[in-house]
């Protein structure tokens, strides 16, 4: 067993550690920046698709359909090589992030649109009846409920986006996959190198998806996540101390 392992692993990995860490950092940066951008653009497109003005709906629909039906690799080439040939030369980080943003925003806009339109109309009415304005209703009533609905799909997209950063190898984006290619060309140990690179992706994606599942569970259970909500619940608990004792006693008596 030890012989097989020593036969398989011959690359001097410690020499490549700084480069791998740098590549790992770039992969995480591409993922974080692109995800934030894709969420913002996806939400904007979803709102346009739900707009009362038909031109806005049409623009958003065309955007979504175009970017959902063009391969990500083609978008990367168009952004990096295509725009450069038209005179707009973007650095590789900007081009890479832009490609991921426009591609994933199309998918996220569909998730957000369905989540927003899934919020019961009665919720908006209840907000109106309480004197809340349109912004207040959207930010305090519709959006929090829509985000809860959209969380599973959005989380899947985040993990998918992280894995898709590997396509940026085609424009030498210096992320993990590009680093893998460099090490391979220096050592000619393709199996070993790509096994290690795959293991690093797995070590990133698996805990991330488990963490997101935990977040989904917490949100579904209504656990207050923001500090100000936690503070409010603490204050409410203090005010309600005597009432909650009564409830606990009641439950105990039932048991």
């Amino acid at each position: 067993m030890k012989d097989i392992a020593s036969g398989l692993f011959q690359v001097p990995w410690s020499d490549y550690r700084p480069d791998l860490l740098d590549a790992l950092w770039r992969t995480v940066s591409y993922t974080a920046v692109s995800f934030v951008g894709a969420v913002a653009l996806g939400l904007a497109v979803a709102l346009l698709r739900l707009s009362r003005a038909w031109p806005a709906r049409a623009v958003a629909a065309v955007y979504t359909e175009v970017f959902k039906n063009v391969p990500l690799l083609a978008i990367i080439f168009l952004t990096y090589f295509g725009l450069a040939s038209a005179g707009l030369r973007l650095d590789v980080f900007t081009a890479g992030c832009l490609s991921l943003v426009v591609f994933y925003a199309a998918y996220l806009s569909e998730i957000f649109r369905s989540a927003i339109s899934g919020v019961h109309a009665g919720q908006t009415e209840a907000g109106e009846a309480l004197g809340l304005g349109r912004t207040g209703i959207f930010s305090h009533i519709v959006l929090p409920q829509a985000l809860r609905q959209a969380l599973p799909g959005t989380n899947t997209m985040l993990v998918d986006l992280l894995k898709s950063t590997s396509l940026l190898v085609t424009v030498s984006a210096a992320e993990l996959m590009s680093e893998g290619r460099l090490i391979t060309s220096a050592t000619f140990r393709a199996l070993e190198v790509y096994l290690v690179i795959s293991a690093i992706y797995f070590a990133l994606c698996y805990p991330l998806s488990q963490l997101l599942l935990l977040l989904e569970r917490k949100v579904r259970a209504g656990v207050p996540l923001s500090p100000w909500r936690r503070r409010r619940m603490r204050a409410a608990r203090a005010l309600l101390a005597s009432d909650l004792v009564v409830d606990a006693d009641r439950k105990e008596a039932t048991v």
Partner: protein
Amino acid sequence: MTEPVTTTKTPAPVAPEAVVRIDGLSKSFDGRLVLDDVRLEVGRGRIVSVIGQSGGGKTTLMRCVNLLERPDKGTVEVAGEVVHQGGRTACRDLARLRRTVGMVFQRFHLFPHLTAVENVVLAQRKAGIPEQEALERAVALLRRVKVAHRALAHPDQLSGGEQQRVAIARALALKPEVLLFDEPTSSLDPEATREVLSVMRELAADGMTMLLVTHELPFAREVADHVVFVDGGRIVEEGRPEDVLDSPAQARTREFLASYGTAS
């Protein structure tokens, strides 16, 4: 449509000050007339109950008070201010109007992402009430509707009766001048109905002004000062509960009450 017959057997005493005054109100949906020349007044401290068959225009009438529906014709006046007239909204501050008019829905419409106490706090905070004051008021209101022990639960963890009581607390949070109840017990089982009616009875005893759409005719008889029977978008008959519910003058009212088994 036939000429409306509005019969007031024994005129209800006119309240000194009307919190809600509706006059000549009409409303259509897709060319279908839902309300036709309706006149209604709710005096301060009074409880007016609107009864009638489903689809008769009761709920639309109520929703015209806080302008969740905009009437096509007529005047709506709330707390002395004309808020809608001749098909146009005259009220410049819709948020203020809606804070003056609390509303309780048939299906509660609590915000599921917030706990019961947060449901009662939200509108207060948006109205500029400081956090601690809003929380204290919310807790006091939840105690008043006897659901404070469940204040930290989310709506899906509450029974129907508890949810509707939280909804009442939420509607009371901005100290409205009038409360609108849109069939508040229609989605509830008998036990929960009793709980909610008991809270409403206490509000009535405290002098809360209420406009109540209900199928709970015994409750309407017990708490209402004035009962209005709406059918086909028009007020067919109105008057004191004992007059309208026990000895109605109109054949249509008798027919409706007979279907509920309450006509004497």
